[in-house]
């Protein structure tokens, strides 16, 4: 026969289990780092190639599909070994799915609005991604990073194209790389 629970024990179980189900946010860090460094390198390489008079400096962005494939593989592997799906996971999937749709739309039709017009929009979009995910994960460095991206996006609107590349590199450093490292450091907490 099962032992009868006391009311206090019942409350303790509920409390303990809710605490148990709290997610470790650190595991998300790797994606911010992957994308952060890919954008940083691509933007800086674009700038350097442009300054050196290379014909197709934008070729540096070829790095992005590579990062896309890599993060797809990492995401798939993590998904396979994951034994729980939280509301945070769902919210993040919708956020970054929407982010990707808008990003690809802006990049695909950047010929229509001009490269100089689309990069500031992309920086603003980076800000949206970090700000919202910072809210979902309750991780302040991401929220601050998002705000920095937005300010950078506005500054970029008033800057020539080559400067926009440097602003983008700076924004991605503050918005993704720094918070990404801080988040990654927490992965085993």
């Amino acid at each position: 026969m099962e032992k009868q629970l006391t009311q206090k024990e019942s409350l303790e179980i509920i409390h303990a289990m809710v605490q148990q189900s709290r997610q470790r946010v650190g595991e998300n860090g790797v994606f911010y780092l992957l994308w952060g460094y890919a954008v940083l390198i691509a933007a800086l390489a674009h700038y350097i190639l442009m300054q050196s008079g290379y014909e197709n400096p934008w070729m540096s962005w070829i790095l992005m599909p590579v990062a896309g494939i890599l993060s797809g593989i990492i995401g798939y592997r993590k998904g396979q070994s994951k034994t729980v799906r939280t509301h945070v996971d769902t919210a993040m999937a919708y956020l970054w799915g929407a982010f990707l749709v808008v990003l690809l739309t802006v990049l695909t039709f950047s010929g229509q609005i001009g490269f100089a017009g689309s990069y500031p929009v992309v920086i603003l979009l980076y800000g949206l991604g970090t700000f919202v995910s910072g809210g979902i994960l309750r991780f302040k460095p991401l929220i601050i990073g998002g705000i920095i991206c937005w300010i950078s996006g506005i500054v970029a609107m008033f800057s020539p194209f080559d400067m926009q590349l440097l602003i983008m590199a700076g924004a991605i450093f503050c918005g993704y790389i720094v918070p990404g490292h801080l988040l990654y450091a927490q992965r085993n907490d």
Partner: protein
Amino acid sequence: MTDFKELDPLLHQSLRLAVMSLLASVVSAEFVYLREKTGSTAGNLSVQIDKLQSAGYIHVVKDFNGKKPRTSCAITPAGKAALDAYVTALKTYIQL
């Protein structure tokens, strides 16, 4: 005089209550996760999951992850309502 409400006997058992509390905070969880978090044995957990499923409190999906069998559980709206009612009833016993 406080009106004491009857506690749902299906939830008033430590492992079943633990499973329901875990499932209430996530979208879905696998058997392995529930076993790890509750610290129960596979046999006991399996029995309690069956009981919760029969009551319609949780939804259980069995499939394969590659070649490994996988059991995923999720709380149903009826299960959520039952857990809410259980907590409300608990409050009548403990003055909160």
